[in-house]
């Protein structure tokens, strides 16, 4: 190790930045967010989740081709062999129970806890970024990953569905035909509606990641929470609370594929998801801001 080179560079830097030392340049939240994405890109679990988002639609299409007919008991199930436009809606129905909560929790449940466990949280918290910036960057990175996973999931389903069954008009839940162009548009809107509960699950996973400081506990906890709500949703006698369960909001997008469009479930999904997400994120931020960093 030789010190003169660094000493010279540091000394030169010191003279030029002497004044700046008192108020060092701050990183922008966008910069920290970009690095959070880079970190995600370098981790295997990210590709595990994204891989599942590609693999499941592929398996579904292969099974469909082998079986010859679609799952008739679910909305759009009977149309999946008629048009590729019906594939993403059916996939969305199947994935809401455990697949998407799991895919989302894999990253959002890990994003703070992993840093705590590895001791890197202390490393980044002793640089020039404020805690709220780091939290915000992690939140945005988790959301970006969830959005990417959903786009991959629906995109793969649509692509493979269209390759296998063609791109023909879709029949709405009201039985009326929807032209391909409008169908794609509504499908995009349906994904946006589906994104609301997905991002809410990410928010809950982020809270658990911050509070438990344990990746496995946060991932499993998020999945358990999601499954419990699904179970509560099918218990008879609890019909009155069903519209307010997070699990129910995974079906809100179906209102867009009715004729005329039923906006009521979408509007309800907006505020019900906010009811889950806002307190979760507020609590996560408060805990993150005030927590003792003892890991590592």
């Amino acid at each position, binding site marked *: *190790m030789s010190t003169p080179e660094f000493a010279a560079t540091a000394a030169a830097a010191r003279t030029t930045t002497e004044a700046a030392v*008192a108020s*060092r340049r701050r*990183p922008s939240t966008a*910069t920290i967010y970009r690095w959070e994405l880079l970190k995600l890109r370098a981790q295997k679990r990210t590709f595990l989740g994204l891989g599942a988002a590609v693999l499941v639609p592929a398996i579904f299409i292969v099974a469909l081709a082998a079986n010859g007919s679609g799952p008739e008991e679910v909305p759009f199930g009977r149309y999946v062999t008629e048009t590729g436009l019906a594939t993403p809606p059916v996939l969305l129905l199947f994935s809401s129970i455990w697949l998407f909560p799991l895919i989302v929790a894999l990253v959002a449940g890990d994003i703070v806890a992993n840093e705590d466990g590895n001791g890197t949280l202390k490393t980044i918290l002793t640089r*020039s970024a404020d805690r709220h910036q780091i939290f915000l960057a992690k939140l945005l990175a988790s959301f970006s990953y969830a959005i990417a996973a959903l786009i991959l999931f629906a995109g793969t389903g649509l692509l493979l569905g269209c390759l296998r069954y063609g791109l023909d008009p879709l029949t709405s839940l009201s039985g009326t035909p929807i032209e391909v162009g409008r169908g794609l548009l509504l499908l995009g809107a349906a994904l946006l509606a589906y994104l609301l509960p997905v991002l809410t699950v990410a928010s809950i996973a982020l809270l658990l990641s911050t509070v438990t400081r344990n990746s496995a506990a946060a991932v499993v906890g998020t999945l358990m929470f999601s499954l419990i709500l699904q179970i509560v949703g099918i218990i008879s006698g609890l019909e009155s609370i069903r519209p307010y369960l997070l699990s129910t909001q995974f079906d809100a997008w179906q209102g867009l594929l009715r004729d005329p469009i039923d906006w009521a479930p979408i509007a309800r999904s907006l505020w019900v998801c906010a009811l889950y997400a806002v307190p979760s994120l507020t609590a996560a931020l408060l805990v993150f801001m005030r927590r003792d960093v003892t890991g590592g």
Partner: protein
Amino acid sequence: MAAVATAAPPIEARGLVKRYGELTAVDHVDLTVEAGSVYGYLGPNGAGKTTSLRMLLGLIRPDEGSARLFGHDPLEEGAAALDGVAGFVEAPRFYPYLSGRRNLELMAALDGGDAADRIDAALETVGLAGRDGDKVKGYSHGMKQRLGIGAALLRDPRLLLLDEPTTGLDPAGMRDMRELVRRLAADGITVLLSSHLMGEVEELCDRVAIVRSGRVIYEGELDALLHRASGQAQGWRLRTTDDQAAWDVCSYRPGLSDLTAGRDGLTFAADEREVAQLSLALARRDIAIVALVPAVASLEQLFFELTEGEEPA
């Protein structure tokens, strides 16, 4: 605010307390580190050194008291209070799935980007220039330690907090690390060095604080501590051509006390006048003195005396 920042000492902690349930990890610690000082922070494992360092850096919230770096409180002012401050607590940690260089690029980005053009120099300084493309998961402990120093230097610090910086380094690495610390101190960087290696502290530090059970039990100049201890001991070591006969001479001299015999000769306590008389008495008995030296207490001895004795009330 700028005036406060220039005048205030690099570290000023007052009445720091941290409790974990029944355990008081840090107990009313006062600490002032003046600019340009290389300050040793010593204590046995579990004494509260690392908790104190974490509080200084704003990683842990104290239950009582406050810590200021150049007059700024990290808990009140966030990252802005850490301007000009760098270092690491316990082992430096990095992203194992990124390369050493990528880790430093991330650190530079988190510092606002100014440090990006100092990455090469930092890697060169810590001897990792040839391994910067390797993922950190393949680094040895010593390499991670070096990378930690490199990451700290990127901040062009005026205050460096180093927690056991030579741990895990080979002898050459330890020597180089000490040389680096000495050089940085010569450049005017204030260093707070937490270490359990007494030789290292003796070699590098001009002032020390010794902590025990969360409390500072000694704080002051290192020289004063060593001087005080050697003055108290008045110990001597004696080797002669005939230690058995020398023992007989010593045991009859009233000015000598605490006489013991060991493999390396005799040890005893006496003042200088009595020692002079003893040397004459030995000569009269034809016993030649091979060595007669004052037994100066080492920092290590003092450390054990201070940290292993009875708990202060």
